[in-house]
Protein backbone atom coordinates (compact mmCIF):
# COMPACT_ATOMS: atom_id res chain seq x y z
CA UNK A 1 0.00 0.00 0.00
CA UNK A 2 1.37 3.38 -0.92
CA UNK A 3 0.97 6.73 0.63
CA UNK A 4 -1.75 9.17 -0.21
CA UNK A 5 -5.01 7.45 -0.94
CA UNK A 6 -7.17 9.55 -3.12
CA UNK A 7 -10.24 10.55 -1.24
CA UNK A 8 -10.42 14.24 -1.61
CA UNK A 9 -13.99 14.04 -2.77
CA UNK A 10 -16.48 12.92 -0.21
CA UNK A 11 -18.66 10.05 -1.43
CA UNK A 12 -21.56 11.32 -3.53
CA UNK A 13 -24.08 10.58 -0.81
CA UNK A 14 -22.52 13.27 1.35
CA UNK A 15 -22.31 15.86 -1.39
CA UNK A 16 -25.11 18.17 -2.39
CA UNK A 17 -28.35 18.38 -0.56
CA UNK A 18 -29.88 15.03 0.29
CA UNK A 19 -33.34 14.94 -1.31
CA UNK A 20 -36.02 12.53 -0.19
CA UNK A 21 -35.39 10.26 -3.20
CA UNK A 22 -32.20 10.35 -5.21
CA UNK A 23 -32.41 10.03 -8.97
CA UNK A 24 -32.27 6.53 -10.43
CA UNK A 25 -28.60 6.02 -11.20
CA UNK A 26 -27.40 7.97 -8.11
CA UNK A 27 -29.54 5.78 -5.92
CA UNK A 28 -28.18 2.69 -7.63
CA UNK A 29 -24.62 3.83 -6.98
CA UNK A 30 -25.47 4.45 -3.31
CA UNK A 31 -26.90 0.95 -2.94
CA UNK A 32 -23.96 -0.75 -4.64
CA UNK A 33 -21.35 1.21 -2.73
CA UNK A 34 -22.83 0.98 0.74
CA UNK A 35 -25.56 -1.66 0.98
CA UNK A 36 -25.36 -1.74 4.81
CA UNK A 37 -26.63 1.81 5.14
CA UNK A 38 -28.82 1.91 2.06
CA UNK A 39 -32.41 2.93 2.48
CA UNK A 40 -34.97 4.02 -0.03
CA UNK A 41 -38.63 4.77 -0.42
CA UNK A 42 -38.40 4.22 -4.18
CA UNK A 43 -37.63 0.57 -4.77
CA UNK A 44 -39.32 0.66 -8.18
CA UNK A 45 -36.96 3.41 -9.30
CA UNK A 46 -33.95 1.56 -7.97
CA UNK A 47 -34.90 -1.69 -9.71
CA UNK A 48 -35.67 0.05 -12.99
CA UNK A 49 -32.39 1.96 -12.99
CA UNK A 50 -30.49 -1.22 -12.12
CA UNK A 51 -32.13 -3.07 -15.03
CA UNK A 52 -31.36 -0.22 -17.41
CA UNK A 53 -27.68 -0.23 -16.36
CA UNK A 54 -27.50 -4.04 -16.42
CA UNK A 55 -26.64 -4.06 -12.76
CA UNK A 56 -29.69 -5.77 -11.27
CA UNK A 57 -27.80 -9.02 -10.66
CA UNK A 58 -24.92 -7.22 -8.93
CA UNK A 59 -27.39 -5.21 -6.85
CA UNK A 60 -29.28 -8.37 -5.91
CA UNK A 61 -26.15 -9.95 -4.46
CA UNK A 62 -25.09 -6.72 -2.70
CA UNK A 63 -28.46 -6.57 -0.93
CA UNK A 64 -28.69 -10.31 -0.20
CA UNK A 65 -29.46 -10.94 3.46
CA UNK A 66 -30.28 -7.29 4.15
CA UNK A 67 -33.71 -6.25 5.36
CA UNK A 68 -35.59 -5.53 2.17
CA UNK A 69 -39.37 -5.31 1.60
CA UNK A 70 -40.92 -8.59 0.58
CA UNK A 71 -41.67 -7.87 -3.06
CA UNK A 72 -38.26 -6.32 -3.62
CA UNK A 73 -36.70 -9.36 -1.99
CA UNK A 74 -38.59 -11.62 -4.36
CA UNK A 75 -37.52 -9.61 -7.42
CA UNK A 76 -33.91 -9.67 -6.23
CA UNK A 77 -34.07 -13.42 -5.59
CA UNK A 78 -35.27 -13.86 -9.17
CA UNK A 79 -32.36 -11.73 -10.35
CA UNK A 80 -29.90 -13.94 -8.46
CA UNK A 81 -31.42 -17.04 -10.03
CA UNK A 82 -31.10 -15.48 -13.45
CA UNK A 83 -27.51 -14.43 -12.75
CA UNK A 84 -26.63 -18.00 -11.80
CA UNK A 85 -27.95 -19.27 -15.12
CA UNK A 86 -26.11 -16.52 -17.00
CA UNK A 87 -22.91 -17.52 -15.28
CA UNK A 88 -23.46 -21.14 -16.27
CA UNK A 89 -24.09 -20.17 -19.88
CA UNK A 90 -21.07 -17.86 -20.04
CA UNK A 91 -18.75 -20.52 -18.68
CA UNK A 92 -20.26 -23.07 -21.04
CA UNK A 93 -19.55 -20.90 -24.08
CA UNK A 94 -15.95 -20.63 -22.95
CA UNK A 95 -15.77 -24.37 -22.45
CA UNK A 96 -17.24 -25.09 -25.88
CA UNK A 97 -14.79 -22.66 -27.48
CA UNK A 98 -11.99 -24.40 -25.62
CA UNK A 99 -13.13 -27.78 -26.90
CA UNK A 100 -13.42 -26.40 -30.43
CA UNK A 101 -9.84 -25.09 -30.34
CA UNK A 102 -8.34 -27.97 -28.41
CA UNK A 103 -6.24 -29.21 -31.32
CA UNK A 104 -4.74 -25.81 -32.13
CA UNK A 105 -2.60 -25.31 -29.02
CA UNK A 106 -3.53 -21.64 -29.04
CA UNK A 107 -4.27 -20.39 -25.54
CA UNK A 108 -7.71 -18.74 -25.51
CA UNK A 109 -7.56 -15.70 -23.27
CA UNK A 110 -10.97 -14.98 -21.80
CA UNK A 111 -11.86 -11.31 -21.49
CA UNK A 112 -14.32 -9.25 -19.46
CA UNK A 113 -17.27 -10.95 -17.77
CA UNK A 114 -16.41 -14.48 -18.84
CA UNK A 115 -12.91 -14.04 -17.40
CA UNK A 116 -14.30 -12.74 -14.09
CA UNK A 117 -16.55 -15.78 -13.80
CA UNK A 118 -13.93 -18.31 -14.90
CA UNK A 119 -11.43 -16.95 -12.39
CA UNK A 120 -14.01 -16.61 -9.63
CA UNK A 121 -13.31 -12.90 -9.11
CA UNK A 122 -15.49 -10.67 -6.93
CA UNK A 123 -16.39 -8.74 -10.08
CA UNK A 124 -18.26 -11.84 -11.28
CA UNK A 125 -20.82 -11.78 -8.48
CA UNK A 126 -24.18 -11.19 -10.15
CA UNK A 127 -22.56 -9.93 -13.33
CA UNK A 128 -24.38 -10.59 -16.55
CA UNK A 129 -22.40 -11.71 -19.58
CA UNK A 130 -23.57 -11.18 -23.12
CA UNK A 131 -20.98 -12.33 -25.58
CA UNK A 132 -17.96 -14.55 -25.27
CA UNK A 133 -14.91 -12.28 -25.69
CA UNK A 134 -11.65 -14.00 -26.57
CA UNK A 135 -8.15 -12.67 -27.16
CA UNK A 136 -5.78 -14.69 -29.36
CA UNK A 137 -2.51 -13.89 -31.11
CA UNK A 138 -3.13 -12.02 -34.35
CA UNK A 139 -1.19 -14.59 -36.34
CA UNK A 140 -3.51 -17.36 -35.15
CA UNK A 141 -6.85 -15.58 -35.37
CA UNK A 142 -7.90 -17.12 -38.70
CA UNK A 143 -7.23 -20.62 -37.38
CA UNK A 144 -9.32 -19.92 -34.30
CA UNK A 145 -12.13 -18.56 -36.43
CA UNK A 146 -12.02 -21.65 -38.65
CA UNK A 147 -12.10 -23.97 -35.63
CA UNK A 148 -15.06 -22.15 -34.17
CA UNK A 149 -16.90 -22.25 -37.50
CA UNK A 150 -16.18 -25.97 -37.62
CA UNK A 151 -17.82 -26.34 -34.22
CA UNK A 152 -21.05 -24.61 -35.19
CA UNK A 153 -20.37 -20.88 -34.92
CA UNK A 154 -21.44 -18.80 -37.93
CA UNK A 155 -20.62 -15.31 -39.15
CA UNK A 156 -23.58 -13.03 -38.70
CA UNK A 157 -22.60 -10.24 -41.05
CA UNK A 158 -22.41 -11.07 -44.73
CA UNK A 159 -18.91 -12.18 -45.58
CA UNK A 160 -18.70 -9.63 -48.37
CA UNK A 161 -19.15 -5.90 -48.57
CA UNK A 162 -18.13 -2.98 -46.51
CA UNK A 163 -18.86 -4.25 -43.03
CA UNK A 164 -16.69 -7.31 -43.15
CA UNK A 165 -13.87 -5.37 -44.76
CA UNK A 166 -14.28 -2.66 -42.15
CA UNK A 167 -13.95 -5.22 -39.37
CA UNK A 168 -11.00 -7.01 -40.83
CA UNK A 169 -9.11 -3.88 -41.72
CA UNK A 170 -9.89 -1.56 -38.90
CA UNK A 171 -11.20 -3.40 -35.92
CA UNK A 172 -9.52 -5.33 -33.17
CA UNK A 173 -11.77 -8.30 -33.61
CA UNK A 174 -13.32 -10.56 -36.21
CA UNK A 175 -16.83 -9.92 -37.40
CA UNK A 176 -18.97 -11.43 -34.62
CA UNK A 177 -19.83 -15.11 -34.70
CA UNK A 178 -23.03 -16.64 -33.43
CA UNK A 179 -23.51 -20.28 -32.55
CA UNK A 180 -26.20 -21.89 -34.67
CA UNK A 181 -27.64 -24.07 -31.90
CA UNK A 182 -27.08 -21.99 -28.80
CA UNK A 183 -27.65 -18.53 -30.33
CA UNK A 184 -24.74 -17.07 -28.36
CA UNK A 185 -22.25 -14.62 -29.79
CA UNK A 186 -18.48 -14.88 -29.77
CA UNK A 187 -16.09 -11.98 -30.42
CA UNK A 188 -12.55 -13.01 -31.22
CA UNK A 189 -10.06 -10.18 -30.64
CA UNK A 190 -6.37 -9.90 -31.43
CA UNK A 191 -5.93 -6.84 -29.24
CA UNK A 192 -8.03 -4.79 -26.85
CA UNK A 193 -8.47 -1.62 -28.91
CA UNK A 194 -9.03 -1.02 -32.61
CA UNK A 195 -5.72 -0.51 -34.45
CA UNK A 196 -7.05 2.90 -35.49
CA UNK A 197 -7.41 4.12 -31.94
CA UNK A 198 -4.58 6.39 -30.93
CA UNK A 199 -3.36 4.35 -27.98
CA UNK A 200 -1.80 1.10 -29.19
CA UNK A 201 -1.83 -1.48 -26.44
CA UNK A 202 0.93 -4.07 -26.60
CA UNK A 203 -1.08 -7.15 -27.51
CA UNK A 204 1.96 -9.42 -27.37
CA UNK A 205 2.65 -8.30 -23.81
CA UNK A 206 -0.97 -8.91 -22.83
CA UNK A 207 -0.68 -12.44 -24.14
CA UNK A 208 2.78 -13.06 -22.70
CA UNK A 209 1.68 -12.06 -19.20
CA UNK A 210 -1.65 -13.91 -19.28
CA UNK A 211 -2.31 -16.46 -16.60
CA UNK A 212 -3.46 -19.97 -17.44
CA UNK A 213 -6.47 -20.98 -15.38
CA UNK A 214 -7.33 -24.25 -17.04
CA UNK A 215 -5.86 -26.33 -19.80
CA UNK A 216 -6.23 -24.20 -22.88
CA UNK A 217 -7.78 -21.12 -21.24
CA UNK A 218 -6.20 -18.10 -19.63
CA UNK A 219 -7.05 -14.67 -18.26
CA UNK A 220 -5.16 -11.39 -18.36
CA UNK A 221 -2.85 -10.55 -15.48
CA UNK A 222 -4.47 -8.44 -12.77
CA UNK A 223 -2.93 -5.09 -13.88
CA UNK A 224 -3.71 -5.81 -17.54
CA UNK A 225 -7.27 -6.62 -16.60
CA UNK A 226 -7.62 -3.15 -15.07
CA UNK A 227 -6.01 -1.57 -18.12
CA UNK A 228 -8.42 -3.42 -20.37
CA UNK A 229 -11.42 -2.48 -18.23
CA UNK A 230 -10.38 1.18 -18.39
CA UNK A 231 -9.84 1.04 -22.16
CA UNK A 232 -13.21 -0.63 -22.55
CA UNK A 233 -14.93 1.96 -20.34
CA UNK A 234 -13.77 4.97 -22.33
CA UNK A 235 -12.83 3.94 -25.82
CA UNK A 236 -15.49 1.39 -26.64
CA UNK A 237 -18.80 3.10 -27.30
CA UNK A 238 -20.06 6.38 -25.92
CA UNK A 239 -19.96 5.39 -22.25
CA UNK A 240 -23.28 3.60 -22.68
CA UNK A 241 -23.38 0.91 -20.04
CA UNK A 242 -20.48 2.71 -18.40
CA UNK A 243 -21.76 2.34 -14.88
CA UNK A 244 -21.53 -1.45 -15.13
CA UNK A 245 -18.01 -1.20 -16.51
CA UNK A 246 -17.01 1.16 -13.71
CA UNK A 247 -18.50 -1.22 -11.14
CA UNK A 248 -16.27 -3.94 -12.64
CA UNK A 249 -13.29 -1.65 -12.07
CA UNK A 250 -14.26 -0.98 -8.47
CA UNK A 251 -14.59 -4.69 -7.73
CA UNK A 252 -11.33 -5.55 -9.48
CA UNK A 253 -9.37 -2.76 -7.78
CA UNK A 254 -10.64 -3.70 -4.33
CA UNK A 255 -9.58 -7.29 -4.94
CA UNK A 256 -6.25 -6.67 -6.67
CA UNK A 257 -5.25 -3.60 -4.64
CA UNK A 258 -4.08 -5.79 -1.79
CA UNK A 259 -1.77 -7.89 -3.98
CA UNK A 260 1.86 -6.96 -3.23
CA UNK A 261 3.31 -4.62 -5.82
CA UNK A 262 0.04 -4.37 -7.72
CA UNK A 263 -0.06 -0.58 -8.02
CA UNK A 264 3.52 -0.23 -9.28
CA UNK A 265 2.92 -2.85 -11.95
CA UNK A 266 -0.38 -1.21 -12.86
CA UNK A 267 1.41 2.09 -13.52
CA UNK A 268 4.04 0.34 -15.62
CA UNK A 269 1.53 -1.63 -17.64
CA UNK A 270 -0.71 1.40 -18.21
CA UNK A 271 2.32 3.20 -19.67
CA UNK A 272 3.32 0.19 -21.78
CA UNK A 273 -0.15 -0.01 -23.29
CA UNK A 274 -0.30 3.79 -23.81
CA UNK A 275 -3.31 3.96 -21.54
CA UNK A 276 -1.97 5.93 -18.59
CA UNK A 277 -4.61 8.67 -18.87
CA UNK A 278 -7.65 6.38 -19.23
CA UNK A 279 -6.46 4.26 -16.31
CA UNK A 280 -5.98 7.36 -14.17
CA UNK A 281 -9.44 8.62 -15.08
CA UNK A 282 -11.00 5.23 -14.36
CA UNK A 283 -9.37 5.22 -10.94
CA UNK A 284 -10.60 8.73 -10.18
CA UNK A 285 -14.15 7.97 -11.30
CA UNK A 286 -14.24 4.71 -9.39
CA UNK A 287 -13.11 6.53 -6.25
CA UNK A 288 -15.61 9.32 -6.88
CA UNK A 289 -18.63 7.11 -7.40
CA UNK A 290 -17.82 3.98 -5.43
CA UNK A 291 -15.29 5.28 -2.88
CA UNK A 292 -12.76 2.77 -4.19
CA UNK A 293 -9.39 2.98 -2.43
CA UNK A 294 -6.95 3.86 -5.19
CA UNK A 295 -3.33 4.90 -5.47
CA UNK A 296 -3.29 8.71 -5.60
CA UNK A 297 -0.08 8.81 -7.60
CA UNK A 298 -1.59 6.82 -10.46
CA UNK A 299 -5.01 8.44 -10.25
CA UNK A 300 -3.53 11.92 -10.48
CA UNK A 301 -5.25 15.18 -9.66
CA UNK A 302 -8.98 15.60 -10.21
CA UNK A 303 -9.76 17.47 -13.42
CA UNK A 304 -12.75 19.68 -14.16
CA UNK A 305 -13.89 17.22 -16.84
CA UNK A 306 -14.18 14.43 -14.25
CA UNK A 307 -17.46 16.01 -13.28
CA UNK A 308 -18.76 15.63 -16.87
CA UNK A 309 -17.83 11.96 -16.90
CA UNK A 310 -19.59 11.48 -13.60
CA UNK A 311 -22.68 13.29 -14.90
CA UNK A 312 -22.66 11.14 -18.05
CA UNK A 313 -22.36 7.91 -16.06
CA UNK A 314 -25.29 8.94 -13.87
CA UNK A 315 -27.55 10.19 -16.67
CA UNK A 316 -30.50 7.91 -15.90
CA UNK A 317 -33.66 8.80 -13.99
CA UNK A 318 -35.83 6.66 -11.73
CA UNK A 319 -38.11 5.72 -14.63
CA UNK A 320 -35.11 4.21 -16.36
CA UNK A 321 -34.99 7.01 -18.93
CA UNK A 322 -31.72 8.32 -20.29
CA UNK A 323 -31.31 11.95 -19.27
CA UNK A 324 -29.01 14.80 -20.39
CA UNK A 325 -29.29 14.25 -24.17
CA UNK A 326 -26.73 16.90 -25.09
CA UNK A 327 -24.12 15.44 -22.80
CA UNK A 328 -24.84 11.99 -24.19
CA UNK A 329 -24.46 13.27 -27.74
CA UNK A 330 -21.17 14.92 -26.89
CA UNK A 331 -19.87 11.62 -25.57
CA UNK A 332 -21.13 9.84 -28.68
CA UNK A 333 -19.11 12.16 -30.90
CA UNK A 334 -16.14 11.76 -28.62
CA UNK A 335 -16.28 8.00 -28.92
CA UNK A 336 -16.04 8.17 -32.69
CA UNK A 337 -13.27 10.72 -32.48
CA UNK A 338 -11.29 8.43 -30.20
CA UNK A 339 -11.86 5.38 -32.29
CA UNK A 340 -10.78 6.60 -35.68
CA UNK A 341 -8.38 9.05 -37.22
CA UNK A 342 -10.35 12.04 -38.55
CA UNK A 343 -10.08 11.15 -42.25
CA UNK A 344 -11.20 7.63 -41.63
CA UNK A 345 -14.05 8.83 -39.47
CA UNK A 346 -15.22 11.01 -42.34
CA UNK A 347 -15.10 8.06 -44.74
CA UNK A 348 -16.94 5.84 -42.27
CA UNK A 349 -19.73 8.34 -41.69
CA UNK A 350 -19.99 9.00 -45.40
CA UNK A 351 -20.37 5.33 -46.27
CA UNK A 352 -22.96 4.88 -43.51
CA UNK A 353 -24.85 7.95 -44.69
CA UNK A 354 -24.89 6.96 -48.34
CA UNK A 355 -26.40 3.56 -47.71
Amino acid at each position, binding site marked *: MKEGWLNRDAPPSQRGKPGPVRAGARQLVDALRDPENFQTSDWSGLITAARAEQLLGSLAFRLEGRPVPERAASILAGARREAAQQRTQALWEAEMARRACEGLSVPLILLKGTAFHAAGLDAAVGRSVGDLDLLVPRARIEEVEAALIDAGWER*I*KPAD*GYDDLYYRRWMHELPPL*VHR*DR*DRMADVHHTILPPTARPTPDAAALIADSIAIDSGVAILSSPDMIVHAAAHLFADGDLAGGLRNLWDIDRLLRQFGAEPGFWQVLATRARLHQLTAPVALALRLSARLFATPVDAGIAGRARPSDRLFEARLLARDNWGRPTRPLLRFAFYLRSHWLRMPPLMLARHLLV*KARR
Partner: protein
Amino acid sequence: MSGTDNEKAGIEAFVPSRRTVLVLGAAAASTVVTIRPALAQTAGSVLNCEIPVPGPHAAGSYIAQDGSTVAAMTPNAHPPMMRPLRGQEAKALLQGSVPPGVNPSSAQAYANYIRRLQSGMSGFTCYASLQMPR
Protein backbone atom coordinates in the same frame (compact mmCIF):
# COMPACT_ATOMS: atom_id res chain seq x y z
CA MET B 1 -40.36 -55.04 -22.09
CA SER B 2 -44.14 -55.45 -22.11
CA GLY B 3 -45.33 -58.58 -20.36
CA THR B 4 -42.42 -58.57 -17.95
CA ASP B 5 -43.56 -58.84 -14.37
CA ASN B 6 -42.63 -56.15 -11.90
CA GLU B 7 -40.08 -58.13 -9.98
CA LYS B 8 -38.23 -59.06 -13.10
CA ALA B 9 -38.34 -55.50 -14.40
CA GLY B 10 -36.78 -54.34 -11.15
CA ILE B 11 -33.87 -56.70 -11.58
CA GLU B 12 -33.45 -55.86 -15.22
CA ALA B 13 -33.00 -52.23 -14.38
CA PHE B 14 -29.72 -53.18 -12.75
CA VAL B 15 -28.60 -56.09 -14.90
CA PRO B 16 -29.92 -55.46 -18.37
CA SER B 17 -30.88 -58.67 -20.01
CA ARG B 18 -29.21 -59.64 -23.24
CA ARG B 19 -32.68 -60.05 -24.62
CA THR B 20 -33.33 -56.31 -24.46
CA VAL B 21 -33.07 -55.04 -27.98
CA LEU B 22 -31.45 -51.67 -28.39
CA VAL B 23 -32.16 -49.82 -31.61
CA LEU B 24 -29.11 -47.79 -32.45
CA GLY B 25 -30.91 -45.74 -35.05
CA ALA B 26 -29.85 -44.82 -38.54
CA ALA B 27 -26.69 -42.82 -38.93
CA ALA B 28 -28.74 -39.84 -40.10
CA ALA B 29 -31.38 -40.10 -37.36
CA SER B 30 -31.48 -37.79 -34.38
CA THR B 31 -31.79 -38.87 -30.77
CA VAL B 32 -30.97 -35.61 -29.01
CA VAL B 33 -33.28 -32.61 -29.07
CA THR B 34 -32.09 -29.52 -27.26
CA ILE B 35 -34.62 -27.13 -25.78
CA ARG B 36 -34.10 -23.64 -27.14
CA PRO B 37 -35.34 -20.40 -25.63
CA ALA B 38 -38.87 -19.80 -26.82
CA LEU B 39 -39.00 -16.07 -26.63
CA ALA B 40 -40.15 -15.65 -30.16
CA GLN B 41 -43.56 -17.23 -30.03
CA THR B 42 -44.80 -15.20 -27.14
CA ALA B 43 -43.03 -12.03 -28.12
CA GLY B 44 -44.66 -12.25 -31.51
CA SER B 45 -48.07 -12.71 -30.08
CA VAL B 46 -47.74 -9.85 -27.63
CA LEU B 47 -45.98 -7.36 -29.81
CA ASN B 48 -46.37 -5.62 -33.08
CA CYS B 49 -43.09 -5.90 -34.98
CA GLU B 50 -41.49 -4.96 -38.28
CA ILE B 51 -38.69 -6.08 -40.60
CA PRO B 52 -36.57 -3.60 -42.56
CA VAL B 53 -35.56 -4.95 -45.99
CA PRO B 54 -32.64 -4.78 -45.88
CA GLY B 55 -31.65 -4.05 -42.28
CA PRO B 56 -29.30 -1.25 -41.23
CA HIS B 57 -26.28 -3.57 -41.58
CA ALA B 58 -26.80 -3.45 -45.35
CA ALA B 59 -28.68 -0.19 -45.74
CA GLY B 60 -28.81 0.89 -49.37
CA SER B 61 -27.94 -2.54 -50.74
CA TYR B 62 -30.08 -4.24 -53.35
CA ILE B 63 -31.62 -7.65 -52.76
CA ALA B 64 -30.66 -10.46 -55.12
CA GLN B 65 -33.22 -13.06 -56.13
CA ASP B 66 -31.83 -15.50 -53.57
CA GLY B 67 -32.30 -12.94 -50.79
CA SER B 68 -28.65 -12.00 -50.36
CA THR B 69 -27.68 -8.33 -50.25
CA VAL B 70 -25.66 -7.01 -53.17
CA ALA B 71 -24.29 -3.65 -54.24
CA ALA B 72 -26.80 -1.02 -55.27
CA MET B 73 -27.84 -1.08 -58.94
CA THR B 74 -26.70 -4.66 -59.44
CA PRO B 75 -28.49 -5.97 -62.53
CA ASN B 76 -31.39 -8.35 -61.82
CA ALA B 77 -31.37 -7.36 -58.16
CA HIS B 78 -34.22 -5.56 -56.43
CA PRO B 79 -34.11 -2.14 -54.78
CA PRO B 80 -34.50 -1.88 -51.01
CA MET B 81 -38.00 -1.45 -49.65
CA MET B 82 -38.89 2.14 -48.87
CA ARG B 83 -40.42 1.23 -45.51
CA PRO B 84 -40.12 -1.75 -43.18
CA LEU B 85 -42.52 -4.65 -43.64
CA ARG B 86 -45.16 -5.07 -40.98
CA GLY B 87 -45.33 -8.50 -39.35
CA GLN B 88 -48.49 -9.49 -41.21
CA GLU B 89 -47.09 -8.34 -44.55
CA ALA B 90 -43.95 -10.36 -44.02
CA LYS B 91 -46.08 -13.35 -43.18
CA ALA B 92 -48.05 -12.94 -46.41
CA LEU B 93 -44.82 -12.67 -48.40
CA LEU B 94 -43.47 -15.85 -46.87
CA GLN B 95 -46.68 -17.62 -47.79
CA GLY B 96 -46.23 -16.61 -51.40
CA SER B 97 -48.71 -13.77 -51.72
CA VAL B 98 -47.88 -10.17 -52.48
CA PRO B 99 -49.05 -7.60 -49.93
CA PRO B 100 -50.22 -4.17 -51.17
CA GLY B 101 -47.38 -1.77 -51.84
CA VAL B 102 -44.88 -4.48 -52.74
CA ASN B 103 -43.71 -4.80 -56.31
CA PRO B 104 -44.79 -8.33 -57.34
CA SER B 105 -41.60 -8.97 -59.29
CA SER B 106 -39.54 -8.27 -56.15
CA ALA B 107 -41.71 -10.21 -53.71
CA GLN B 108 -39.79 -13.47 -54.00
CA ALA B 109 -36.43 -11.78 -53.41
CA TYR B 110 -37.77 -9.98 -50.33
CA ALA B 111 -39.23 -13.23 -48.99
CA ASN B 112 -35.87 -14.90 -49.48
CA TYR B 113 -34.15 -12.03 -47.69
CA ILE B 114 -36.41 -12.54 -44.68
CA ARG B 115 -35.73 -16.29 -44.69
CA ARG B 116 -32.01 -15.60 -44.49
CA LEU B 117 -32.26 -13.37 -41.41
CA GLN B 118 -30.17 -14.60 -38.53
CA SER B 119 -30.13 -13.91 -34.85
CA GLY B 120 -28.68 -10.51 -34.11
CA MET B 121 -29.90 -8.93 -37.37
CA SER B 122 -32.62 -6.34 -37.38
CA GLY B 123 -35.99 -7.98 -37.86
CA PHE B 124 -34.90 -11.41 -36.68
CA THR B 125 -37.08 -11.58 -33.58
CA CYS B 126 -40.00 -10.51 -35.72
CA TYR B 127 -39.24 -13.15 -38.34
CA ALA B 128 -38.80 -15.82 -35.67
CA SER B 129 -42.18 -14.97 -34.22
CA LEU B 130 -43.77 -15.36 -37.65
CA GLN B 131 -42.29 -18.84 -37.91
CA MET B 132 -44.35 -19.99 -34.98
CA PRO B 133 -47.75 -21.47 -35.73
CA ARG B 134 -50.37 -18.88 -34.96
